């Protein structure tokens, strides 16, 4: 308390630096953020760094901090390290002592253990990694202590007290139903959306305390929750809010007796139930089951025939940060892939979360805000304008016989790749009509920004492309689901690809020829048009493999039966012979017995 005022009255009013910067950034509406950021940056350079307490210069946490943390959080703790501009959300500004992940009430300081937990475990879904394995216990303790020296609040306010968090009540159908009721009642959907995918009406306007665009959490991906995805963690976030973000505390609702503690727990149970039991396991191979003869492949994402597919494979996607312009704030962080084939044709079902059905005018301002805060050299001359969502499935043009693969970022001029490329709207459309499933074309790519349709002039402007690839996509409540279908073979060269073990070349147009029973390299790309994504600005995956099940040969069924019969027959022979010998021995023994007695 005292120090706060002391600092304020001191002749050297260093905190001013910070205020000036904060004001500049906050008033982003007029002038726009880049100007404000530039101003803040200039101020930060022009003014002396905040004066630290004398003993802080030799604080044991300082070397650790300066080495490992300052790159993002800045030597002065303002969150403006050299790398900060490449991050969204931005690194924490320690000088304001506003911490998202706490066990204390809204606006209160965090407990040491709260800071420590974030250092140890990181913040999933952000660029903040966990340091438990990198730094010693001592170093991490020192860091907690050192980070606190950036804000006078820690010195001047009484020690914070954690909220009392009890044990969760048992989860049950009724508990989940009540949780869902409160989800509706207290309007969590306003930001998080009806199904929790972060697609609420208010989602496009969200900003953090520094005016940076921020997204409501996708509640169906609890492995990415800041602060943890357990029901206890969710309940705690509901009680404490996430300071510095739009997520408020709901503790007052219990104090006001609008809802009970148990009901808040049930809400937490409900939110927990929106995510899978376990975080998805990433495997290298996507399996396409072979449907029984006589049955047909699904045509739409809602087709019940998809129940024949094996467990969906989860493919994580990350922002493209290799080729400039790079993209550090991607929307799509993963895609679920299911596959079926009938020996003639392949059907893929792709499911990914994207809070906007682009192009959507409601997200234009969001686009502008995102473009305003990414590093200028990464978004030169990029304007906010209606852009469609897009998705690409990538194959090598030639199915390789060996391990050599084209460059995973859409190949290069030496070795282009083949794409199944879908977009949610046709060129020129500025508002995607509901129910429009967009269009898909096949394309050749020799780089992220060099995608050429295979059929000359096929930019999708004409409805119903002539190609063999068909798409059926639908967007609902923050999620795209799409079926892509194409014959395995499009070439009419009569080659039996099933019998080929070596390379299988593309058809005359450059379409990849697919075959069952071998590992087919496959990769995925996603773009959210409402997030200004297109070209090199999007989400990417590495190479994975698609494996189309082969028909089970009859010998699989007959051989075991034969083997069993043979074994049984041989066994019988052995048993019978053994019995006969036994019988002979018995006769022999009975003859000899008297002799022994003699």
């Amino acid at each position: 308390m005292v120090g706060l005022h002391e600092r304020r009255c001191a002749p050297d009013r260093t905190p001013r630096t910070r205020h000036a910067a904060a004001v500049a950034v906050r008033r982003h509406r007029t002038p726009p953020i880049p100007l404000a950021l530039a101003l803040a940056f200039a101020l930060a350079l022009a003014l002396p760094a905040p004066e630290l307490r004398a003993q802080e210069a030799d604080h044991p946490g300082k070397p650790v901090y300066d080495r490992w943390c300052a790159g993002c959080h800045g030597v002065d703790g303002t969150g403006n390290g050299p790398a900060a501009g490449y991050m969204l959300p931005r690194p924490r500004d320690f000088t304001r002592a506003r911490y998202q992940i706490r066990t204390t009430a809204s606006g209160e300081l965090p407990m040491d253990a709260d800071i420590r937990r974030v250092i140890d475990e990181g913040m999933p879904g952000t660029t903040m990694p966990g340091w438990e394995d990198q730094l010693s216990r001592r170093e991490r303790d020192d860091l907690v202590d050192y980070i606190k020296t950036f804000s006078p609040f820690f010195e001047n306010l009484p020690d914070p007290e954690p909220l009392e968090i009890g044990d969760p009540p048992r989860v049950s159908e009724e508990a989940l139903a009540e949780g869902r009721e409160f989800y509706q009642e207290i309007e969590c959907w306003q930001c998080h959306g009806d199904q929790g995918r972060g697609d609420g009406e208010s989602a496009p306007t969200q900003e953090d305390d520094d005016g940076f665009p921020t997204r409501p959490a996708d509640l169906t991906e609890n492995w990415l929750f800041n602060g943890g995805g357990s029901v206890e963690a969710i309940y705690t976030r509901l009680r404490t809010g996430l300071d510095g973000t739009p997520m408020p505390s709901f503790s007052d609702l219990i104090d006001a007796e609008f809802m009970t503690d148990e009901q808040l727990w049930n809400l937490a149970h409900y939110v927990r139930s929106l995510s899978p039991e376990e975080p998805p396991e990433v495997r290298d191979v996507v399996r396409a089951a072979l449907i029984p003869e006589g049955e047909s492949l699904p045509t739409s994402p809602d087709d019940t025939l998809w129940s024949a597919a094996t467990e969906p494979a989860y493919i994580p996607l990350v922002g493209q940060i290799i080729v400039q312009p790079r993209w550090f704030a991607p929307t799509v962080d993963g895609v679920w892939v299911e596959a079926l084939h009938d020996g003639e044709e392949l059907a893929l079902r792709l499911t990914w979360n994207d809070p906007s059905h682009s192009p959507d005018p409601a997200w234009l301002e969001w686009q502008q805000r995102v473009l305003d805060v990414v590093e200028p050299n990464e978004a030169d001359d990029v304007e906010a304008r209606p852009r469609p969502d897009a998705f690409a499935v990538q194959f090598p043009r030639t199915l390789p016989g060996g391990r050599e693969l084209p460059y995973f970022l859409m190949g290069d001029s030496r070795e282009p790749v083949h794409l199944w490329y879908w977009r949610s709207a046709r060129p020129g459309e500025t508002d995607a009509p509901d129910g429009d499933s967009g269009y898909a074309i096949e394309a050749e790519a020799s780089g992220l920004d060099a995608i050429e349709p295979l059929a000359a002039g096929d930019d999708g402007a004409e409805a119903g492309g002539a190609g063999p690839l068909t798409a059926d996509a639908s967007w609902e409540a923050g999620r795209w689901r799409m079926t892509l279908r194409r014959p395995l073979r499009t070439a009419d060269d009569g080659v039996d690809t099933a019998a080929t073990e070596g390379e299988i070349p593309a058809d005359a147009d450059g379409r990849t020829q697919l075959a069952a029973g071998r590992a087919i390299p496959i990769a995925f790309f996603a773009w959210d048009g409402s997030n200004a994504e297109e070209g090199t600005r999007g989400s990417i995956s590495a190479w994975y493999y698609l494996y189309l099940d082969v028909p089970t040969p009859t010998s699989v069924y007959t051989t075991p039966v034969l083997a069993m019969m043979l074994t049984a027959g041989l066994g019988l022979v052995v048993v019978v012979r053994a019995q006969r010998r036994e019988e002979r021995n018995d006769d022999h023994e009975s003859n000899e017995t008297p002799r022994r007695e003699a």
Partner: protein
Amino acid sequence: MMSKLNGVIVILSLTALPVVAACGGGAPADEEQAGTEDAQAEAGPAVDPAVAATITGVVNFEGTAPEPESIDMDAEPDCAEKHPDGASTQEVVVNDDGTLANVFVHVREGLGDREFPASSDPVVLDQDGCVYHPHVFGIQVGQTLTIRNSDGLLHNINARPEENRPFNISQPVDMDTERSFAVPEVMIPIQCDVHGWMQAYVGVVDHPYHAVSGDDGSFTLENLPPGEYVVEAWHERYGVQTANVTVGEQETEEIEFTYDAGMAQNADVPLGDPIDLHDDHGGDDPRITAVEDADGDG
């Protein structure tokens, strides 16, 4: 209703005043010294009604006021219904008589070591029709702020101070929630993240001499001890102005602030700025965009 946080804030606010007073001495006070002065601190002289003075005035506006931006409330029909003629932003509200509303006016300097206990009457911030009422208001350190939801739909109240601790609470139904602020700070932005257009500003001072210009642009600071004062006006778009005023016993001084449309260009609008009543710094405050000397008038 009163949360633990509130308790903390109230405690802080009780200790805040003497410490601020200690700062006035100019010497940086360490904890021990502050403690001593704390014990010695006495309440300042009560204002004798027989000598109490008044500063009154008006905030003028020159030039062309920007057109108010209309708010699209389609997403909240219940709120839209409360604005049959449509709602618009309150960033710049120029009255019919050419005066400027929503200007926070407060005594910035001149009260010396006097202390003024916070009023026990709460200040009410009402959310009605998805608009804050009032849009700009003042409150005293430690005074209760009653945040009211009259809309019966989800609002969050996100206060983002620099000198005080922040809070961000939700009110999904008709309800009252109480909070208070521990230290002076002009101004603190408050916003609703559910409805991006909802914005309010609160000025926290540690005395009762604050007002907000109304629909005739006028303001009145009454019951002042006679003395020399620096009165500051704050507007969210046009920035800060100050006036030096001297009032004698039972006198009423009139002052005028004049904003013009061009000031929006370079206005420095302090948010989360610490203010120190007892800090007698000169006119080098970079926040001040225009100084009007009303000394000797009226």
